[in-house]
């Protein structure tokens, strides 16, 4: 018959995984000062339980002479990024105000993760707007039931050292407001197709899957396919795809501004460097922090495969017309099992039609 209660089952899973982490991570606490932004993360939950060697990897840099892990390579010798990955993490983009250090200890990470799993299970109050939803845990969508990063960083932002997004210039703040006003569609929210979010319309996920590739609430999974001349990144939600040429081509004219900008890549040693320009000026097409970027903004991403199960992902935001100083984000992409189910967003998007029908019923009552 059906399994036990959700709470029992999930806590069992998380505790099991965390126990594995604690066992293998004991020595890693002592190594924290050696952790750089390129520290070796490991996988928690399912993967940790099944492959505890992953969680043991933070202990690897114990000596300066430790050799880098062997990584898969393509026939032409490049690091092979091909595979299925997730950037799911409990690490926040910005460091919390009450945290002053760069890294948590293994024990703190364990506690934080356990608490987060408990929060995942919290129930809403019947009769409240927030209760009008299916249960994420019932459908296995919360992070604690899926693979997420074992990342001891206290913030994804590794520079500036305070782990916070730098202040925006007054000009950038004005740009952000002007764009929001320019693209605001008249009418109440959910009253028409035009006032519904681009995600609900299956145009592109919001925030988009990149660039930059910030973690998503759920299903933050990617498939990377690599060839000598292109890298393709498929994002599970809505099926958004990035196609990144590696052939040194020029960017299109500034009038061409796709939702995800225009990306071009090249190899810098073992690191894939991707430059993106020509960003759309539509505010919903980017993470909120980048709503005020200038027309000339260039985003730099770096993908570096550091072992069989991990890609270090880094991006740099350097836009003097927008931010008072540059900022850098680091996070692991952790290997997951594929395949990715075909998203086909409109296949069952009954919600759009139902919302419109509901709005018309409300109109009749006015």
């Amino acid at each position, binding site marked *: *018959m*059906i*399994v*036990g*209660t959700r709470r029992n*089952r999930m806590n069992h899973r998380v505790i099991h995984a965390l126990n594995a982490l604690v066992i293998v991570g004991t020595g890693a606490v002592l190594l924290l000062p050696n952790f750089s932004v390129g520290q070796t993360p490991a996988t928690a939950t*399912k993967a940790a339980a099944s492959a505890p060697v992953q969680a043991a990897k933070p202990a690897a840099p114990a000596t300066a002479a430790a050799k880098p892990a062997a990584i898969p390579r393509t026939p032409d010798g490049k690091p092979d990024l091909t595979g299925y990955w997730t950037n799911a993490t409990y690490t*926040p*983009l910005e460091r*919390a105000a009450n945290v002053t250090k760069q890294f948590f200890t293994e024990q703190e990470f364990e506690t934080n993760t356990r608490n987060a799993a408990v*929060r*995942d299970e*919290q129930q*809403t*109050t*019947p*009769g*409240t*707007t*927030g*209760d*009008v*939803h*299916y*249960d*994420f845990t*019932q*459908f*296995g*969508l*919360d992070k604690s*039931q899926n693979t997420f990063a074992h990342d001891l960083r206290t913030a994804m932002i590794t520079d500036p050292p305070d782990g916070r*997004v730098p202040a925006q210039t007054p000009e950038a703040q004005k740009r952000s407001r002007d764009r929001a006003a320019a693209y605001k569609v008249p009418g109440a*929210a*959910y009253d028409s197709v035009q006032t519904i979010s681009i*995600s*609900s319309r299956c145009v592109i*996920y919001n*925030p988009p899957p990149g660039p930059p590739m910030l*973690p*998503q*609430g*759920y*299903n933050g*999974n990617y498939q990377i396919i690599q060839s000598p001349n292109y890298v393709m990144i498929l994002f599970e939600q809505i099926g958004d795809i990035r196609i990144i040429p590696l052939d040194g081509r020029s960017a299109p004219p500034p009038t061409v501004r796709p939702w995800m900008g225009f990306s071009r890549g090249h190899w810098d040693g073992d690191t894939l460097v991707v430059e993106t320009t020509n960003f759309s000026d539509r505010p919903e097409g980017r*993470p*909120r922090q980048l709503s005020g970027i200038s027309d000339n903004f260039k985003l730099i991403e770096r993908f570096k495969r550091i072992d069989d199960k991990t890609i270090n992902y880094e991006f740099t935001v350097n836009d003097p017309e927008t931010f008072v100083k540059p900022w850098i984000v680091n996070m692991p992409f952790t290997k*997951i099992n594929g395949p990715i*189910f075909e*998203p*086909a*967003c409109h296949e*069952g998007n009954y*919600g759009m039609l*139902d*919302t419109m*029908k*509901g*709005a018309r*019923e409300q109109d009749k009552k006015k």
Partner: protein
Amino acid sequence: MRLRTAVAITGISLLLGSVPLWAHHAFAAEFDVNQPLKLTGTLKKWEMINPHSWFHIDVKGPDGKVSEWMVEGGSPNALLREGVTKETVPIGTVLIIDAYHAKSGENKAVGRDFTLPNGKRLFLGGSAQNIAPEPGK
């Protein structure tokens, strides 16, 4: 997790910067918070499609008349990775669903909680190998 936590986390995330969108669309715009329902019916079809799955159930009314309801559930992606298929919950399984009625007035609802007749919650995530509901019970 439900939306209360999601809202809370979104609020935090607005401060932190990472804004998770926990749902593909706004459920409170599609379904009426003032029309909670408890539906008991037998599973007729489970559409495991994106962006959200839909359970079709036959519900017998007080007058004995059977009507079909569509109940919205979670995205199938994570379930498929766990080995759940549309056969995992067999046709004919009795489901008791706490739900909210669609604003359109149609026989549609969002299932905030799915329960089996034995009182156990229909827990799909990460437990596919253990799910073997007894049809019709």
